[in-house]
């Protein structure tokens, strides 16, 4: 298993992502944003941070980077892609995932542990998809622009299609996200994005190892 973790100017969680990939199994390497070559990796992580300073809108500029063009082609061929926080914003801007992430309702940067309810991302009927870790995951959030938003009809459609991957547990929505949505997947089931940071929840020393299960599910679809 070979992982590629994108690195933009302004990325800040790529090292933790590399570490999480390696813990989940396999080797991981950084892919610089100017590279069009993904070096034949089996899965791609678009990490958190503030790519290109988040100028214009979070993720808007990163979307047009050579590496993201390569990721879009990789995703179109069914390659697994995991977008975390800023990476989720980039994937939404790139139209690889439905919806958009807006300024938190509170206008405050949030940074704390949350519980996530895991919903149907993938499942037995979709073998080329993320496997569904059961139950509830404890994973930190840290963002200022994480309010998931989509038009009502789009929300209805992605819910009907099982594309809502994670919701914040009742009463824990940290940012005003529509329908408590914390993460979504694409229609095919090989692109997954979420605002919380699974790469920061891989060691018991920091309170939770639940994040590893998300990386393991990505590894599962690459296998």
């Amino acid at each position: 298993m070979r992982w590629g973790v994108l690195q933009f100017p302004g990325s800040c969680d790529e090292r933790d992502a590399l570490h999480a990939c390696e813990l989940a199994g396999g080797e991981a390497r950084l892919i610089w944003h100017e590279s069009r070559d993904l070096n034949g990796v089996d899965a791609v992580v678009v990490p958190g941070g503030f790519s290109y300073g988040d100028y214009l809108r979070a993720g808007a500029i990163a979307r047009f980077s050579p590496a993201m063009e390569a990721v879009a082609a990789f995703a179109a061929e069914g390659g697994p892609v995991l977008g975390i926080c800023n990476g989720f914003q980039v994937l939404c801007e790139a139209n690889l995932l439905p919806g958009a992430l807006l300024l938190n309702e509170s206008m405050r940067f949030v940074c704390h542990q949350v519980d996530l309810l895991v919903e149907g991302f993938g499942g037995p009927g979709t073998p080329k998809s993320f496997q569904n870790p059961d139950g509830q995951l404890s994973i930190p959030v840290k963002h200022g622009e994480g309010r998931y938003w989509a038009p009502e009809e789009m929300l209805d459609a992605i819910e009907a299609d099982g594309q809502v991957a994670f919701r914040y547990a009742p009463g824990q929505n940290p940012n005003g996200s529509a329908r408590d949505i914390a993460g979504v997947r694409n229609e095919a089931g090989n692109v997954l994005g979420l605002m919380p940071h699974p790469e920061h929840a891989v060691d018991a020393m920091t309170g939770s190892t639940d994040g590893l299960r998300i990386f393991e599910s990505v590894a599962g679809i690459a296998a």
Partner: protein
Amino acid sequence: MAKARVLIRPKEGILDPQGKAVERALPALGFEGIEHVRVGRVVELEAEDPARLPELCEKLLANPLIEDFEIESIDGA
């Protein structure tokens, strides 16, 4: 080169926390009776081919899912 100004604002119906914060600050400054404040962005640019501006706005300057945009010519202004 044609000078243009692009106005970008959050779509109707989308909560705009920045606008709300501005609105809430106004009474303390003595400005009563101000409602529905929305905060957007202005991009000024010079274009060789202004006919391509709408495409540029849809692809980069605005996210059409969440934002509306208007292009104003400011030539001769």
